[in-house]
């Protein structure tokens, strides 16, 4: 058992866990953050993708101890005071899901790409998402969502503009 101290979605946290627990396990079963999905649990599917110091990692094959002293962002942490992240909004608008199980991992992997390369081509998007499997859709809508997120980011709207879209939609809905 060890006490891990790290930043989790912007907050400093302290979590006690046995050495053999994975980062995925402490998030789901200690921190109560179930947005990060446990799919294959052995590196194949990408459903457990989150950011460790801003880079996508597979939390099912990362030991919890690796998070000590570092910065962890999960799907829950993408939402800010101004609303969902632009990538979340674009996924939402594209309707690029059926069961939805792949989406948190897909969005986290996409978020890194949009940050690093908002001019990404379709081929670059495919390569960046190669480790994220979706068993329901045919990927096309997912790639379109990422292209949209890239475009909005290039146009400078980013999260703020996406937040406005969302607010307008919610208003219309309700």
């Amino acid at each position, binding site marked *: 058992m*060890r006490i891990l101290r790290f930043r989790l979605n912007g907050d400093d946290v302290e979590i006690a866990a*046995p*050495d*053999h627990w*994975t980062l995925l396990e402490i998030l789901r079963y200690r921190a109560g953050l179930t947005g990060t999905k446990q799919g294959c*649990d*052995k*590196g194949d599917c*990408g459903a457990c*993708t989150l950011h460790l110091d801003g*880079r*996508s*990692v*597979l939390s*099912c*094959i*990362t*030991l919890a*101890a*690796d998070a000590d002293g570092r910065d962890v962002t999960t799907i829950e942490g993408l939402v800010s005071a101004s609303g969902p992240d632009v990538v979340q909004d674009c996924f939402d608008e594209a309707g690029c899901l059926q069961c939805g199980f792949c989406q948190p991992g897909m969005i986290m*992997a996409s978020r890194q790409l949009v940050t690093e390369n908002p001019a990404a081509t379709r081929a670059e998007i*495919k*390569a*960046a998402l*190669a*480790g*994220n*499997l979706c068993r329901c859709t045919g990927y096309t809508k997912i790639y379109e969502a990422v292209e949209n997120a890239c475009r909005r980011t290039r146009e400078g709207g980013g999260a703020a503009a996406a937040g406005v879209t969302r607010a307008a939609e919610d208003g219309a809905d309700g």
Partner: protein
Amino acid sequence: MKAFDLVQARTVQEAAGLLPVDPADKSAMLLAGGQDLLTELKEHLAEPDRLVNLKGIPGLDAMTWEADGTLVIGAMVTVQDLEEHTRVRETLTALHEAAASVGSPQIRSVGTVGGNLNQRPRCWYFRSEEAHCLKKGGTHCYAAVGKNRYNAILGGFPSYIVHPSDLATALVALEAEVTLVSPSGERTLKLDDYFTLPREGSYQRETVRLPNEVMTSVRVPAPPAGMRSTFLKMQERESYDWALSAVALCLWMDGSRISDARLVLGGVAPKPWRCASTEALLQGRSPTTEATARAAGADALKDARALSDNGYKIPLTQGLLRRALQKLGA
């Protein structure tokens, strides 16, 4: 996964000292990026009481070029850092291409070179907890008569695993050496000699590494001037996958003819498969002719013995070799 203690080593010596001396003692193992090790633990291939963490040991993640052009890659350099290194891409293209072909972006960003070379085979019988196969101390290699489409066509008997490392295929072609450190000292050997065939050593391991040795670096000697190299891999899925077959080829040209060559096959044998006689056969030939492709393909696979479901690997490998010759000869 069985419970274990994670121990942070501060130096390579300390890490080596925490490892068992006796091969029968499986109580401690090294942890690098964990991208293979965690799957080994979850599949109960290994059940150590202690993991010795190599992350955080200073110096192991450095990549340096010596004055003569030799590249020294620290064992903890990530596959992604190797892939993105400009001088590697320009001068050791096969190594760049092999790194770029490894797993998914998430795996490349965490997985290390040392871990890649020391990862365990992916044979589904070996990886299945229910199958107590030859490699796990059992009596049979189930792949010999079972489902064997991903298994070895060369050097297989009596265990038909294929070595899963793509970096190994390219690095053997580039005549790399590895340095191993144990409490009793240090040794450097050719990567080609680091890997063993099942019939040469223990069925249960793929390398000559002693249980208390830590791989600290890989040295890629400066290639003789004029080398062109490539690594081509065929995988079942386009997104990411281990090699069904791979070819690492280095060529030196004298005008339109090959003056020297290195050829190593991956995904088809329990170790990277160096084809010395094919290298000799290629000398003096034109790389892009059909006659050269046919002669080289026949020679490289002359000892191949297909199992029931993996005969396709023979023409597949010959096709990759043809493409590699055309690419480098163009």
